[in-house]
């Protein structure tokens, strides 16, 4: 609770993003519906990976639930370490992905900030983000004894080959057949067109929101993006996402007009690579802001629109395979480096902060090469923070603080 006697700082109030309130309402409504007994909603629940094609689930009126989003909530509530330790006592090695560990443990004890996720009727695993999700979803499929659909999207190290295209396209058909089987009803292709349009529109708007940070000073930071991201992840393909991002975009544009920046006296513009360190976003945000450093963009939140160029709004289902296979995490390290170079130019970055995330090997291995490429081609300072997205035991505060200070000196 806020202290009623504490004076409200009008300057701080002015900088706060007002749409946050609406966003919290939407997420609360979403989780309330998901946790309402199925006899009342009459809807089935699917657990799905964050990079998975959710749109066909929306078409089938299935409620998608994202263990990774819940992992983020667990991390932000600083409940990650306890749950990870619980998973370790179940026999899972402490080196495994902390989202997976937290979710596996949470399922058995109804843990985390909302007392566990609602039980799934099916599991949808798309491996475009990592191989870990396959193992994680196998664990949950054994635990809940529900059907598991795997959308296998081979990594495009150097190309999206004709072989990959054919294979993934075939699986899109199999995905729909799977859903028809589990839901016991026919797939509505007309509704797919609507949902597909909403999905693409949501992604476009999200990209537009992220692009407002091209303005100097920036109306928001990547720490804000980490928060507002939840909708494009969880409710992609629905009207509330489009409405919300329209509202957020309007607010950002207004902030630019009014000269409201998120960081006071923005001096440095930085990029962030990899997932947030959920239990330390505030600490990091304050730490950088104190030096006038604004993290204007990141590779993570823009990941949800990284394959917009392959999506066809007029033929969503037909372009689904390519769109979901060619997300940036499913490409080669050199392509991921190119992505960062483009972002550095686009957002006029003065430096790059790399979160080497012990939990996420496909995102983190290769970062040292990316770092070298960025230094050589852009001649900007880079900083590597060794940490973990929700396991706090990995975070060495004083060491990281020293490194941030040294990095800021290099920017000066």
């Amino acid at each position: 609770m806020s202290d009623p006697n504490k004076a409200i700082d009008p300057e701080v109030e002015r900088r706060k993003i007002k749409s946050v309130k609406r966003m919290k309402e939407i997420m609360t409504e979403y989780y309330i519906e998901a946790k309402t007994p199925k006899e009342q909603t009459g809807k089935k629940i699917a657990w799905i990976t964050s990079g998975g094609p959710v749109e066909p689930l929306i078409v089938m009126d299935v409620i998608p639930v994202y263990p990774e989003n819940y992992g983020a909530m667990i991390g932000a509530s600083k409940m990650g370490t306890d749950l990870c330790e619980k998973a370790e006592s179940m026999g899972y090695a402490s080196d495994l992905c902390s989202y997976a560990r937290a979710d596996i443990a949470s399922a058995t004890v109804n843990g985390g900030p909302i007392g566990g996720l609602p039980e799934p009727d099916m599991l949808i695993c798309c491996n475009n983000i990592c191989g870990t999700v396959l193992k994680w979803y196998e664990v949950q499929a054994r635990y809940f004894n529900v059907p598991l659909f795997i959308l296998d999207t081979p990594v495009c190290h150097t190309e999206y080959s004709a072989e990959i295209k054919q294979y993934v396209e075939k699986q899109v058909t199999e995905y729909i057949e799977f859903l028809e089987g589990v839901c016991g009803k026919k797939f509505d292709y007309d509704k797919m067109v609507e949902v597909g349009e909403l999905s693409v529109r949501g992604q476009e708007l999200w990209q537009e929101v992220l692009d407002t940070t091209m303005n100097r000073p920036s109306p928001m930071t990547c720490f804000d993006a980490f928060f507002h991201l939840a909708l494009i992840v969880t409710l992609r393909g629905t009207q509330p996402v489009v409405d919300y991002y329209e509202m957020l975009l309007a607010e950002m544009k207004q902030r630019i007009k009014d000269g409201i920046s998120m960081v006071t006296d923005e001096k440095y513009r930085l990029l962030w690579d990899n997932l947030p360190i959920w239990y330390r976003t505030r600490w990091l945000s304050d730490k950088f802001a104190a030096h006038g450093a604004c993290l204007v963009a990141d590779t993570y939140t823009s990941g949800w629109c990284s394959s917009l160029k392959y999506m066809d709004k007029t033929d969503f289902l037909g372009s689904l395979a390519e769109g979901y296979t060619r997300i940036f995490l499913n490409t080669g390290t050199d392509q991921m480096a190119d992505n960062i170079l483009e972002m550095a130019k686009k957002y006029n970055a003065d430096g790059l902060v790399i979160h080497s995330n012990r939990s996420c090997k496909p995102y983190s291995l290769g970062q040292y090469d990316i770092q070298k490429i960025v230094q050589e081609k852009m001649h900007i300072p880079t900083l590597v923070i060794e940490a973990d997205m929700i396991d706090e035991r990995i975070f060495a505060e004083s060491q990281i603080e020293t490194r941030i200070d040294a990095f800021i000196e290099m920017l000066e």
Partner: protein
Amino acid sequence: MASFDLFYEIINNPGRYAINWKKETGNKVIGYFCSYAPEEIITAAGALPYRILAGSGSISKADAHLQAYSCSLVRGALEDALNGRLDFLDGTVFPHTCDSIQRLSDIWRMNAGFKFHADVMVPVKLNTASAGDYMTSILDKFKKELEKLTGIEIAREKLKEAISIYNSIKKNLSRLYAIRRDAPDVIKSSDIHAIFKAAMVMDRRRLLEELERLIADLGENDRAPDTADKRIVLSGGLCSMPDIYKTIEKSGGVVVWDDFCTGSRYFEGEINTKVEPLRSIADRYMERVVCPAKHKSLFSRGEYLVNAVKENRADGVIFFLLKFCDPHAFDYPYMKEMLEKENIPSVLFEIEDQLPSEGQINTRCEAFMEML
């Protein structure tokens, strides 16, 4: 008397063997990772498939590219490549398996400087018809890439010949396992380990001859009856530490089976010679017990392990978990639970770069054998 000298000679310096082979034949040497590399196609192209295992020295150069949370196989292999210890390779094949190998492939392609680099994007699902079709199509793609490298067309007959060589090799390797299972004192596990390591780098025709000779020498009649030793099944990724076998033997145990990709997973599953060659290679991968980075069914690896214990009349299981190997670490709890349900005891050893200290592992091994 059977001699294993040749195999030990090769594994003591596999690079030198490959260099000599290259000089003698004038053909190419292709490095590969893991048992999902289609060696048959490489052999059919006249090249030597050379399996890259854990590195042979301490890590320094690889640290500039890989975080400390990558497994020793990935870091060691990169170290060898960057140090020039693999300069004799004409190229490398990376079948898709785990997240670490996936990124190693990129880092390798960007830094190791080999002119040929192939990513064989093996499907992750190995239980659907579309995955089987896809697997066949990427094998064909790989074949074409090799043809471009070597300038030689890989004719159907060449492929069929290579397949039949591999079928025979694998039949002989499986016979070695059967001999050990039925009479563990006829062939020691450390010798089998040496043979397998050599088998993955040596000329395959020569290998076949040597295996046939060896099995003849081992004989059918001079087998001793079962000893009182505890019969152990090993489970895990790969094991490049021969010392573990000696430790187990010293503690009163004997290894009778494993599910390693440098062991039973390497030789299991015959390629059907009546089917189109590429399709038949794909079919074998679809049918064989999987690497945990692949999906066949929710319980396939656990079922395989329980059966391996029963069929080989084993007393217990030792799990070897290579530190930072995610796929295996995810499977361990359920596999252990399946063993428990069958009252099969097991113990877990975590391996980093090396085995835990000798004293420690001896003690744990002895304690486990006593418990059995």
